[in-house]
């Protein structure tokens, strides 16, 4: 009997097992100039590499050639979404090295404005993350509230984005007339707005389908790979520098550190929403307890920190933003190192994306909340 061999698979010449897909650097969902090269099996990611540095400006090199007060504006241009937080870590590092006693009122104002900055940063994250996943309304709504905060910044600092908010030793000036009213109006309306976002997203079937179980990272892995901020707390590690090592006026504030359970994209979304609520609480408390008095310490005309090295970090909206400062005792630093939370968080992208679909890569980049200005520095 003659037997006919029949192919058991339907392979043709066009069926190649793998393909390499280039995503970015000009891609709307990479939130800047991030280039991700994906190796795909069908639509599943089997390997991934990031290409960064398109925005490298050599800020650390520039800082070595500048006087201490001149360096502050460069910090704003790192994570331009959270310029107020970035500026705070720089001035606090120099102040602590100099041993300056910053007046309490300055600390409280710093706390209010840094928390407002955290809210605005999270709102922009929510807007773009929602847009990436397919919810357009949340973009419009979240930017509407962010606008309120940017208006407060503009009135206070004279700039909306790169504020150059602080000076070494305190503030450039006290709060403007009507500051308390503006901030109070914002924080009073804000819970209602947050509820609106939640009605849009939290139980939305599409949203759940796109985020639950996507980009899971365990607490142990998250710590090992250096995640920080909401990305780490989404995995259930309750580490917040505002609690662990309080700076500014956070020691006097009551707030909770929200943590997730599963370490997936949905948990990180919940953590960030809850953080906005807690930030609002902090702003309210700081406004209520705001002391009177000067906003500037007595600062030497020429700022020359003692020779030595110092590391200070704060809880930025994206994670632990730190400054390692080496001084040789002159008026220019010997080395300024920015501990970039986004860069180190982005390291986890490969681990979080393996085995997921291409569309999930977009969701995971969004959930890491990266800003390329800070990754490339």
């Amino acid at each position, binding site marked *: 009997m003659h037997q006919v061999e029949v192919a058991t698979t339907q392979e043709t010449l066009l069926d190649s097992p793998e393909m390499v897909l280039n995503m970015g650097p000009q891609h709307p969902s990479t939130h800047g100039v991030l280039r991700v090269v994906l190796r795909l099996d069908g639509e599943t990611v089997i390997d991934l590499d990031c290409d960064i540095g398109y925005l490298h400006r050599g800020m650390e090199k520039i800082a070595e050639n500048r006087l201490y007060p001149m360096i502050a504006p460069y910090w704003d241009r790192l994570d331009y979404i959270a310029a107020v937080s970035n500026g705070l870590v720089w001035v606090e590092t120099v102040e602590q090295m100099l041993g300056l006693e910053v007046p309490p009122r300055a600390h409280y104002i710093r706390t209010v404005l840094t928390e407002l900055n955290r809210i605005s940063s999270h709102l922009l994250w929510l807007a773009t993350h929602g847009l990436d996943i397919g919810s357009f309304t949340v973009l419009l709504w979240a930017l509407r509230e962010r606008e309120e905060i940017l208006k407060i910044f503009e009135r206070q600092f004279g700039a909306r984005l790169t504020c150059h908010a602080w000076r070494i030793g305190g503030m450039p000036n006290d709060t403007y007339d009507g500051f308390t009213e503006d901030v109070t109006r914002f924080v009073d309306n804000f819970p209602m707005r947050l509820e609106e976002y939640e009605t849009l997203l939290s139980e939305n079937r599409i949203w759940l389908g796109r985020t639950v179980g996507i980009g899971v990272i365990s607490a142990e892995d998250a710590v090992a790979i250096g995640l920080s901020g909401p990305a780490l707390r989404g995995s259930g590690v309750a580490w917040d520098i505002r609690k662990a090592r309080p700076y500014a006026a956070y020691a006097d504030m009551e707030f909770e550190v929200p943590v997730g359970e599963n370490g997936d994209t949905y948990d990180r979304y919940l953590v960030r929403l809850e953080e906005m609520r807690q930030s609002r609480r902090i702003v309210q408390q700081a406004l209520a307890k705001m002391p009177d008095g000067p906003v500037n310490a007595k600062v030497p*005309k020429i700022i020359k920190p003692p020779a*030595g*090295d110092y590391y200070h970090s704060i809880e930025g909206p994206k994670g632990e933003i730190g400054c390692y400062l080496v001084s040789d005792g002159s008026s220019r630093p010997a080395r300024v190192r920015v501990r970039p939370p986004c860069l180190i968080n982005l*390291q986890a992208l490969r681990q979080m994306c393996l085995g997921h679909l291409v569309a999930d890569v977009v969701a995971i980049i969004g959930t890491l909340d990266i800003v390329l200005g800070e990754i490339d520095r």
Partner: protein
Amino acid sequence: MNDEPDNTSSPDSADSATEHPAAPPADETAEERRARIIAEAKAKAAAKMAAKGGTNAQSETPTPDASAPPTPESQAAPQGKAPSGQSRDTVMGASTGEEAAASAPPADETPEQKRARIIAEAKAKAAAKMAAKGGAPAAGETPQATKPPATSDEEKAARIAEARAKAAAFKGAAGAGGSAGGATPTPKPPAASGAPTASAGAPKAPVKKKEEGAKAADASGHPLVARLREHLDGAVTEASEFLGQLSVRVARERIVEVCEFLKRDSETPFNYLSDLTCVHFPENTDAPFEVVYNLYSISANVRVRLKVGTTEDAGVESVTGVWPAANWMEREVYDLFGVRFHNHPDLRRLLLPPDWEGHPLRKDYPLEPVENNWTTKHLPEFSEVQREQLEQRRAYGLEALSTPNERRVREIFRAGKEVMPLDRK
């Protein structure tokens, strides 16, 4: 310079402009015209500076063919330049103003030559003035101050070296005075140690401050250091504490061992690598690169800093096996400093292109536009203007290209003996 009356808006410029009207050739192009106007404005500004710099300025300004009326920018730039040149030449112990004024300009010199000459003269004059202001110079200083100006480069270099040595000697003396003063219960006022330095005509020597701020203290008694010493014999070479932060210097070969130990430490498990970076100390020839590990223990809320000195060739063992977080941070250090990490899974450049040459965060890497194979391949060539800017930047540090506001800020700081980057070495 600051306490002089501002005579920049003297009528000389207007007069000379009317006396010697520029006769531009009829067929010159727009570019030529622009270049000519810029050159004239610069020459004019230089002449202005010379007028400001010396008492006998009338003898040499205005220059014959500097006819374009000076713009505010062209006036401002040399004003900014002057102090840096002044401090350089003062240290060299340059000539008196009379000698500079006596050199008659040759008739056929180009605008560039003229500019150079005028700047040189102005510098010499400023130096002479500075010497006169500084009061009676020290006995050893006098013969040098009256030497004729240096003509060749070798002579100039020799002078600079001599002056440096002298400045160092004065600095040493001031330092000795300062420390002696610090030992007695009532320290001398800062002027006492600052005055001789100034009168010696060496403004570069920093004035010793009495209060020095925080100092690093030995931290051998720290329990963590004691534990490290007990378990890993000889791995810790030095431990210090600065502003409450513990730094432990570790032998290069044993860094992974120490990291493993700290990560598994029972009392303070340093499970989180906050930061890994590097600092370049070029003067430290044995180990110019210091790799710095900032560790954090989330459970115990403690930070510690490890430091490892190394050279470019020796490199460091990678700690990616201990904390995967070190992966990109080590790549960044390799990229920007050129320190190699052994057994790193994927040691490539992180931020710069893979075929870039050099490591920008090293101290010997210039803060200016660079040219290498990568830039010639990917970027347009430098224009004439960019090249000129680059040369000016090299000559005057950041001064020549900075904005008026930046210059003003520097002006403020210069009153406090601030020096420009070029003068720093």
